[in-house]
C-alpha cells in the first residue's frame, strides 16, 4: 500500500503537490497511510486552508473595541450593548450550486447557520447575495430558480428569516453562479462559546445526521483501490450533499439548549472536511489531542471506509466536547429533540489526532492535530496587473452611441420581489425593513427576555463585478461604501463587515492581483467607516473553460440604529416633496467605466470608475443615518446600479407618485454610478433647515425637483408615465423566470 502512496500519481490525484506531499512525510517522520493522506489532502485544500489568500487577508483591519471575536473562529462576534452580542458570518456555496442548484443553496444556508449557533447564538437572519448567468439563457434560469427555491425551501423550514440579499445576472456567471449566504445571530454576551476541546478525558459527542458518502469529492479517488483506472467505482461516485432543514432545526434547538445549560466545554460544526476538520480543529485550538473511534459514528450507508467517514461532508452534524459527568444530560437533551448522539472520541493530552478502529481499538491514523492547520502550506502566488490595464483605463466608456435614454432607463429597472417573497422574511417579529428597500432593519431584542432594546440592527450585502472588473481596488472601496450607505438609509451606523471573496483561478497572476487589490480597497474603506472585518470566506477557482469570472468581492455590513421608535421612511415618495441629492458632487464629464449603462447598454467593459471621495462618503453616510434617526426626511434611497435616474425612478414607483426633475441632461448625468450619494424627499417647510444642517456637516446638496403627478419627468430627456415605469420594473423577473427552465 505504501508504495502506491509514494507514487506521485496518488497524492496528485488527491490534489497535493510534490512539495506538499514531502512536507507531510517530514511532519510525520514517515510515509502517510491512505487515511492520513486523505485527511491532509482535505485539510490542505484551498477551501479549508486558505493557502493562496492567507497572505492577503492579513492586511484587513480586524479590530475595534466592540469586536469580541474576529476572523478565524466560526463567526465574528461584536458587542452591541445591553449585554447582547451579535454573531455574523458569510460563506459561498458556488460550486455545489452549479451542479445541483436546489441542494447547493440549501446546504449553503444550513452550513452558515451552524457557524452561527456554534458560537452559542440563535440565528435570526439570513441574507443571500446571488449571481447568475444571463436571464435569456435557459440553463442559467434553471440554476437561478433552483437556488432561489433552495434558499426558500431550507431557510423557511429551518425557521430563520431571509431578510435581504442581491440578485445579479451577467454573462460572467454563465457557467459559474455565485451563491453566497450570510447569517446573523444574537446571544447573551456571557454565553459566548468557542470551538475548542480542552480537559483530558472529556468526550467528543457527534450530534445530528448519520454520516453518508456526501461531498467526498476529490478524496473518492481513494475508493478505487490501487488507483487502477479501469476499476469500476461507479457505486462509490462522490455524491451530492442533500440538506435536511428539519434535522437542522432539531440540531439547532438541541445545541442551544445544551449551551444554555452550560453542558458544553466546546462545540464545532462539521463543514468542509467533515470530522477531520472538526476533531483536529477543536483539539488544536484547545492545545489538546483527540482519540476518535471511527466505529462509533452512525452511518447512513454500510461498508463505508475510514477515509470516507473522516472526510464525509454529510450535513447537519455538530461535534460537542462534554465533561463525562455531563454526558447523561447531553444525551437526554439530544434524545428529546430526536437527534442522534454518538460518543466518538475523547480529549487526550498528547496533541495527536488518533483515529481508532473501536474505542480502544488499533490506531489507524496518527497525526499531530495542529499540523493539519498550522502547517498547512501558505503561498505567495505571483500576481500581475493585466498588461492592457492602463490602456483600458484610458477608454471613455461614456462615448458610445447616442442612445435612447427612456428605453435605457426602462431596461435597467428591476423589482426583485419575485425572489424575496419566496423567503420567510418576517419570522421572529424583528423585520422593520425587510428585503426590497436599501438596507434591512431588524429590531434588536434581548435574547434572554425578548424585551425590545429600542434599538435596531441595519444590514446590507453588496458586490459589484462591473466596478471591480474595471478597477478591483477602487471598485471594492465603492461597494463597501454602498453597503454602508444602504444601512444609513434605514438609520444605522456601521459597526462591522464580513466578506466573501469570489475570484477566479489563483494560479492566474491576474486573478491574484485582482484579489490583492480588492483586499486593499476593502481595508481602506473598512478603516474609513470604522467597520472592521470580523469574518469571511474565500472562494477561488470560479472559472469556466479556463475563463475566470469577473472579480466579485461581496461584503455584508452590519450597523446600529440607536433609537428605533418609528419605521424609517423608506424609498417611496409621496406628493409635494422636494427631491434632493446628498453627497459627492458629480462633474459634467464624469467617467462611466463599470456602470451598468456602459456594461449592458453600451457594451463596454473598459474605462475607469468615476472619482470617488471616501472621506466624503463617510460624512454623507453618517449625516443620512442621522436624518433617518431624527425622522426628518419623508423618503430616502441611495444611488447604486443605474445611477441617479434609476434611484429616482425606484422612489417614484415605490411611492406610486410622479416627479418633475431637472439638471440631468445626458446619459452621463443620468446613469453614472459615482459612489456615496443619497436621494431624499423632504417636506417643503423642512428644506431650509436641512440645507443648513447639510452645510454644517460638510455634505454637498443639490435640489433636483419635486414630487407629484403621475409622470416621471427629467428635463426634456425623460418623460414616462408612472404606469409604464412600474410595469417595466415589475415584470422582468416574473416574465423571465416564469417561462420554465431546463437543466442542460
Amino acid at each position, binding site marked *: 500500500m505504501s508504495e502506491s502512496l509514494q507514487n506521485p500519481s496518488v497524492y496528485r490525484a488527491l490534489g497535493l503537490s510534490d512539495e506538499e506531499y514531502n512536507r507531510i512525510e517530514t511532519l510525520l517522520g514517515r510515509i502517510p497511510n491512505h487515511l492520513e493522506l486523505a485527511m491532509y489532502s482535505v485539510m490542505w485544500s484551498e477551501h479549508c486552508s486558505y493557502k493562496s489568500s492567507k497572505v492577503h487577508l492579513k492586511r484587513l483591519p480586524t479590530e475595534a473595541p466592540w469586536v469580541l471575536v474576529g476572523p478565524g473562529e466560526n463567526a465574528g462576534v461584536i458587542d452591541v450593548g445591553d449585554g447582547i452580542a451579535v454573531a455574523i458570518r458569510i460563506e459561498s456555496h458556488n460550486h455545489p450550486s452549479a*451542479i*445541483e442548484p*436546489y*441542494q447547493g443553496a440549501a446546504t449553503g444556508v444550513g452550513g452558515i447557520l451552524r457557524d452561527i449557533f456554534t458560537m452559542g447564538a440563535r440565528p435570526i437572519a439570513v441574507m443571500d447575495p446571488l449571481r447568475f448567468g444571463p436571464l435569456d439563457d435557459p440553463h442559467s434560469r434553471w440554476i437561478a430558480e433552483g437556488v432561489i427555491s433552495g434558499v426558500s425551501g431550507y431557510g423557511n423550514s429551518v425557521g430563520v428569516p431571509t431578510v435581504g440579499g442581491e440578485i445579479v445576472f451577467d454573462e460572467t456567471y454563465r457557467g459559474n453562479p455565485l451563491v453566497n449566504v450570510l447569517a446573523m445571530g444574537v446571544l447573551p454576551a456571557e454565553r459566548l462559546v468557542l470551538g475548542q476541546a480542552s480537559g483530558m478525558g472529556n468526550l467528543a459527542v457527534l450530534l445530528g*445526521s448519520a454520516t*453518508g*458518502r*456526501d461531498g467526498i469529492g476529490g478524496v473518492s479517488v481513494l475508493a478505487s483501490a490501487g488507483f487502477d483506472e479501469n476499476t469500476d467505482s461507479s*457505486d462509490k*461516485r462522490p*455524491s*451530492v*450533499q*442533500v*440538506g*435536511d432543514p*428539519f*434535522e437542522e432545526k432539531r440540531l439547532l434547538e438541541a445545541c442551544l439548549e445544551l449551551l444554555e445549560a452550560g453542558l458544553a466545554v466546546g462545540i464545532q460544526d462539521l463543514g468542509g472536511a467533515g470530522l477531520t476538520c472538526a476533531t483536529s480543529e477543536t483539539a488544536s485550538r484547545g492545545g489538546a489531542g483527540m482519540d476518535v473511534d471511527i466505529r462509533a459514528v452512525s452511518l*447512513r*450507508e454500510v461498508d463505508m471506509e475510514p477515509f470516507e467517514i473522516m472526510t464525509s461532508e*454529510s*450535513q447537519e452534524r455538530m461535534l460537542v466536547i462534554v465533561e463525562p459527568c455531563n454526558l447523561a444530560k447531553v444525551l437526554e437533551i439530544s434524545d428529546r429533540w*430526536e437527534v442522534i448522539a454518538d460518543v466518538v472520541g475523547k480529549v487526550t493530552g498528547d496533541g495527536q489526532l488518533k483515529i481508532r478502529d473501536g474505542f480502544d481499538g488499533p490506531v489507524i491514523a496518527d497525526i499531530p492535530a495542529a499540523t493539519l492547520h498550522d502547517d498547512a502550506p501558505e503561498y505567495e502566488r505571483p500576481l500581475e496587473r493585466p498588461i492592457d490595464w492602463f490602456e483600458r483605463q484610458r477608454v471613455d466608456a461614456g462615448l458610445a452611441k447616442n442612445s435612447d435614454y427612456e428605453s435605457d432607463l426602462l431596461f435597467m429597472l428591476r423589482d426583485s420581489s419575485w425572489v424575496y417573497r419566496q423567503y420567510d422574511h418576517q419570522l421572529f417579529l424583528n423585520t422593520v425593513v425587510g428585503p426590497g428597500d436599501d438596507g434591512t432593519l431588524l429590531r434588536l431584542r434581548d435574547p434572554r427576555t425578548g424585551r425590545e432594546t429600542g434599538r435596531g440592527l441595519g444590514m446590507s450585502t453588496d458586490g459589484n463585478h462591473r466596478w471591480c472588473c474595471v478597477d478591483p481596488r477602487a471598485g471594492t472601496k465603492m461597494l463597501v461604501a454602498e453597503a454602508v450607505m444602504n444601512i444609513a438609509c434605514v438609520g444605522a451606523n456601521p459597526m462591522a463587515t464580513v466578506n466573501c471573496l469570489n475570484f477566479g483561478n489563483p494560479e492566474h497572476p491576474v486573478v491574484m492581483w485582482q484579489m490583492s487589490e480588492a483586499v486593499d480597497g476593502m481595508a481602506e474603506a473598512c478603516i474609513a467607516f470604522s467597520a472592521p472585518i470580523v469574518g469571511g470566506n474565500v472562494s477561488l477557482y470560479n472559472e469556466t473553460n479556463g475563463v475566470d469570472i469577473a472579480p466579485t468581492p461581496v461584503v455584508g455590513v452590519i450597523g446600529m440604529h440607536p433609537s428605533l421608535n418609528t419605521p424609517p421612511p423608506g424609498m417611496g415618495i409621496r406628493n409635494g416633496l422636494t427631491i434632493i441629492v446628498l453627497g459627492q458632487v458629480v462633474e459634467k464629464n464624469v467617467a462611466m467605466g463599470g456602470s451598468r449603462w456602459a456594461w449592458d447598454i453600451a457594451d463596454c467593459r473598459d474605462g475607469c470608475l468615476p472619482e470617488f471621495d471616501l472621506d466624503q462618503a463617510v460624512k454623507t453616510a453618517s449625516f443620512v443615518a442621522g436624518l433617518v434617526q431624527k425622522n426628518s426626511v419623508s423618503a430616502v434611497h441611495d444611488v447604486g446600479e443605474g445611477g441617479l435616474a434609476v434611484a429616482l425612478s425606484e422612489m417614484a414607483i415605490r411611492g406610486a407618485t410622479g416627479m418633475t426633475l431637472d439638471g440631468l441632461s445626458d446619459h452621463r448625468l443620468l446613469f453614472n454610478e459615482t459612489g456615496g450619494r443619497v436621494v431624499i424627499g423632504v417636506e417643503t417647510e423642512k428644506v431650509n433647515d436641512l440645507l443648513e444642517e447639510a452645510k454644517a456637516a460638510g455634505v454637498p446638496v443639490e435640489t433636483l425637483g419635486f414630487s407629484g403627478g403621475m409622470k416621471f419627468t427629467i428635463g426634456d430627456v425623460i418623460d414616462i408615465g408612472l404606469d409604464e415605469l412600474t410595469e417595466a420594473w415589475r415584470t422582468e423577473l416574473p416574465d423571465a423566470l416564469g417561462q*420554465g*427552465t*431546463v*437543466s*442542460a
Partner: protein
Amino acid sequence: MTIWRVKVEVSPRSGIADPAGATIERSLPALGFENVQNVRLGKLICLEIEAENREEVEKLVADMSERFLTNPVIEDSYVEIFES
C-alpha cells in the same frame, strides 16, 4: 396520431440522502407500523403525449425527464409508456 399515456417515476439515487423518506420511516413505528425499512420518497409524473409512434414518445420523454423533470445528479427516473 395516437395519444400515449406516460408515467415517469423519479426517485432519489441510491446513496443520496433522502431526508423525507427517512423522516417518514422514523415516524412509522409510532403509528403502529413496524418492520418497515428503506423508505424513499420520490415523484410521480403522469402525462399524455400525442405522437405518431412509440419511438417518438420514448425519445421525447427521455429528453424531458433528463433535462426538465429530474436532475440526474441526484435523481433516477424510470419511464412507462402505454398506448391509450
